[in-house]
């Protein structure tokens, strides 16, 4: 099929946007905002184009671009998307587009902020469209590193009263400051990267094909003896980014300290990189290894779901609540993946998209509330619904998606995962999964009640509702949530095609 290089354009648009923004004069208020908005808008349009043009009757990877880079080592510039990565490109485009608008009010070093944001998103797109493991890792690192600066420079600190047996130590390492959060997040993710690098290089070596090309490796069967110990390495490496328990504690601190758009991108998209990596590299290349280890993946996922929800209930800081809800929801993603069957994996990928959009919406809202009320402590809020009805409405939509209300995308994803869970070998995974949804209802509605309902606090009588560009993120993301909740098949059709291809690798492997 003849086509113009869509995927390269998706990569180039934010990258050129970043370059252009960087060379703008500091004083150009609109230019440093409009350029990123246009760059993000282009990717959004292209990603919708991809979704429309993806031919699901053929399936497989499409929109392929292939140029050798270092043939001696088998490294090439090889891009392509299948249904799974397509869904995630779609997600990323929405999050960056709305993230640009959610950061409109950043006044300090605006152009550097947008430059880094666009660079980061170039990396994210790169990971999703790469069909070469070397390229994949390159983009992966590009996606991880700008976050350090975004949090360290534009983040926010919060004093956390140290308690418990580690109190003194917690104070000394500086828990709660943005520098701490930035450092923790980066070190954690680099720790993960080390595992990934080992994993990828071992795959390269043991396959004996002398290529990093994903399609060639995919067609090749890696020796099951290697798969057995390679899978956990890859799982831990990507799992760190996906927030698997107990390696998740970077995420609440990181998300809480990050500026709004960075939280949106991080919780919305970057955590999915991890899950995507586990599915794409871990499961697709190493079906035997995956089969051997899914009991661990699924068990940890159920811990994530229940433990994350209960921890979120304990939090009194709005950003931490949303951050822990991400930990819980990433558990659903990983649980779906661990079921290794069609409904479960469909649900898993759908949950990646749904949770990404939802958490993007929630972080955008938290940012707005914080900006206007100057507090993140929910106990200091109350009766906000009267002063900010718009924000309250969108917050309710986000919250309801989070607790899996039908009609919104979260339900479709969770329900598919539940359907898969019962059919997995470990059927009892279903119970913590469903219970987690109940706990989510408890903490989400409790937070909504405390913030927006109840008697109006006179202290906040001048609290404004959202204005101008602030509505963009809220309206667009809520719209997507409702759209995907009502007509999920627009994404599920391509996802299903690719999930079936993935599962075909498990033929004869699964008992």
């Amino acid at each position: 099929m003849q086509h113009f290089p869509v995927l390269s354009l998706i990569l180039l648009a934010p990258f050129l946007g970043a370059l252009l923004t960087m060379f703008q004069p500091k004083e150009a208020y609109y230019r440093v905002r409009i350029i990123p908005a246009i760059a993000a808008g282009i990717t959004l349009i292209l990603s919708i184009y991809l979704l429309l043009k993806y031919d699901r009757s053929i399936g497989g990877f499409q929109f392929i671009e292939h140029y050798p880079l270092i043939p001696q080592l088998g490294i090439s510039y090889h891009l392509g998307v299948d249904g799974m990565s397509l869904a995630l490109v779609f997600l990323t485009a929405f999050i960056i587009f709305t993230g640009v608008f959610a950061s409109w009010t950043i006044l300090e070093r605006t152009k550097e902020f947008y430059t880094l944001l666009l660079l980061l998103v170039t990396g994210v797109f790169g990971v999703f469209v790469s069909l070469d493991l070397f390229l994949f890792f390159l983009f992966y690192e590009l996606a991880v590193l700008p976050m350090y600066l975004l949090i360290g420079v534009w983040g926010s600190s919060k004093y956390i009263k140290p308690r418990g047996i580690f109190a003194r130590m917690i104070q000394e390492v500086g828990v709660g400051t943005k520098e701490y959060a930035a450092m923790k997040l980066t070190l954690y993710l680099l720790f993960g990267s080390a595992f990934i690098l080992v994993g990828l290089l071992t795959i390269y070596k043991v396959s004996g094909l002398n290529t990093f090309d994903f399609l060639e490796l995919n067609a090749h069967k890696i020796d099951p003896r290697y798969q057995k110990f390679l899978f956990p390495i890859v799982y831990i490496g990507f799992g760190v980014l996906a927030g698997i328990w107990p390696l998740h504690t970077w995420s609440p601190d990181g998300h809480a300290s990050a500026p709004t758009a960075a939280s949106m991108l991080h919780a919305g998209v970057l955590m999915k990189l991890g899950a995507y990596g586990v599915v794409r590299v871990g499961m697709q290349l190493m079906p035997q290894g995956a089969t051997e280890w899914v009991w661990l993946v699924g068990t940890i996922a159920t811990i994530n779901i229940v433990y994350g929800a209960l921890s979120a209930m304990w939090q009194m800081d709005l950003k931490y609540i949303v951050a822990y809800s991400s930990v819980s929801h990433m558990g659903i993603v990983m649980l779906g993946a661990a079921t290794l069957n069609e409904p479960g994996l469909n649900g898993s990928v759908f949950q990646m998209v749904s949770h990404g959009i939802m958490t993007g919406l929630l972080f955008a809202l938290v940012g707005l509330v914080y900006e206007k009320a100057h507090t993140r402590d929910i106990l200091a809020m109350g009766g906000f619904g009267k002063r900010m009805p718009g924000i309250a409405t969108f917050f309710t939509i986000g919250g309801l998606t989070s607790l899996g209300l039908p009609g919104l995308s979260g339900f479709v994803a969770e329900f598919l995962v539940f359907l898969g869970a019962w059919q997995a070998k470990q059927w009892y995974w279903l119970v913590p999964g469903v219970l987690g949804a109940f706990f989510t209802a408890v903490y989400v509605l409790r937070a909504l009640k405390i913030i927006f309902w109840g008697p109006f606090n006179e202290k906040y009588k001048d609290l404004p509702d959202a204005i101008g560009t602030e509505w963009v993120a809220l309206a667009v993301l809520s719209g997507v949530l409702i759209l995907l909740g009502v007509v999920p098949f627009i994404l599920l059709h391509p996802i299903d095609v690719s999930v079936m291809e993935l599962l075909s690798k498990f033929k004869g492997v699964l008992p």
Partner: protein
Amino acid sequence: MNQVQVLTLLVLLPPLISFAWNGVVIPWRRAGKPAAWLSILAILTSFVASLVLAKTVLASPGPYSWEWTWLPFQNFKPIIVGFYIDPLAALMLVVVTLVASMVQIYSLGYMSEEPAGSLGRYYTYHSLFSFAMLGLTASASLLQIYIFWELVGLCSYLLIGFWYQKPSAANAAVKAFWTTRLGDVGFALGIVVLWAHTGTFALPELFHKVEAGQIATSILALTMLLVFFGAMGKSAQFPLHIWLPDAMEGPTPVSALIHAATMVAAGVYLVARIFPLYSHAESVMTFIAYIGSFTAFFAATIALVQEDIKRVLAYSTISQLGYMMAALGVGSVMAGFFHLFTHAFFKALLFLAAGSVIHAMHTNDIWKMGRLAKPMKQTAIVFIIGTLALAGVPPFAGYFSKDEIIIKVVESGMVLPAIFALATVFLTAFYMFRVVFVVFFSHREPEGHPHESPAVMTGPMWFLAALSVVAGFLFKGLFEKFFGHAAEAMETAQEAATAASHVPGWLPILTLILALGGILLAYLIYQKEAISHERLRAQFRPVYVMLQKKYWMDDIAYFLYRRVLVGGLSVICGWFDRYIVDGIVNLVTWLTRKSGEILRLLQNGVVQDYLYGVIFGLILFILLGIF
């Protein structure tokens, strides 16, 4: 598209359009009245369409079903959504649209003091509720029922919390959501497991499979029990009934529509809807019969001592829902659904009349009311009609349906449910007439200056009052014709068990005597004051306290929520995460930093120290070389 399809869409779409328009066009909603009129127009359209639909379907019962793919699968059958219309669904559609129309019209008067923005919001929620409830009724698959089931729950939550600035309303709203959601955990598990074993959610297919005996009995029993937990939550069956009395914090018309006539009956409807499945799970049926009859009795006893007029009605609703469940549990769809049908009218009527009283008095406390029959004649008359219907006095509607239930329960030969059912007749008559006498006739002077409500409120009340009188004898034949069938099938299955017990001819007379006895006793205590209720209260103090405290069910629930979940498990997890999991991470950081601090001492930049080091090292090497 055939006629039934067009009509179904005509029933379903108007509220959806009204919701979408009111929801998205913000100035329109904020204007208040336009939103209200649009919503009322929509529901009236639905009402007319549902009448025509019912007429069509009753003429040729179908069932009609059609479906679309919603979630694609390759290894499994795709998951479908669609509509399934049979007489059960058609009649339920009529009930929902009828009560919803009346309530929405009535609300124009009741909510007249609300600001325009709030009024618009109120009607937007109402439209969404109507759509969701109608969607639930017409669903062709269990998954779709679950979807709309949750959506009506959402509307209930939003409308209970309509006056969200009142802390009691906010608390009641979340409590309602959580409690029903807890039941829905069972519902979700049930349908997931059922799907895994049948590969479908579609009702016609499931019915077919169960008839052909393709579903293992154990799986069927398990899943039906789990699904019933959902019904228990929604239909406020013991012990998940705790949310319904608190739900009275919402506006009274909402209580009439959602928490009396339609949504709370959804659980009953669900069991009736998938009755072919339940009828093959006999152990679950017995469970339902016990839970239902116990709930009927249990809630009626609490209603005896309530002092808030709406809470009396709320407990009465729980009690009546228990009756319906009991009827289904003993295998009679006809009795259960017939009672749902009549109950919807007279309970909605009672709530609207109570709302009229509250609107005039600005209080819910029955002891602050009295002799209201004089200033509020119309309200008094319709309230008494509703009460007579509820108490089961012929020829009012409730008599027919309740009698049917009691006969069926006694017929089943289950002793305990039969006793519960009969005792509840007496209690119901007593507590309802307690309210009637205290509020409308007693010698106490009412506080303030009560006045009759405007016509926009009394009109719907009269309409429902008329139905409360005639719905019983007019439609009994109809229900027997269409739903007696399922009961017969069940009877043959249980014939051996029930052959011994025959319904004694004196049973209807006994129930009538019980009802009249309840009325008489209420008359003696609260009107004649021949027996002092204060002395009774003192004499039976432990019982009184227990009833007043609602058997401490609320306290137990609060304890579970506050101390076990939020104050227990969540604290443990949160603390563990912050101080142990993250603590270890920080410990590593701290150790790294500390060891760095110590090792840094070696690099202190003092040349002499380095020299010492060099010499020391040299000596070390020399020594090493020697030995």
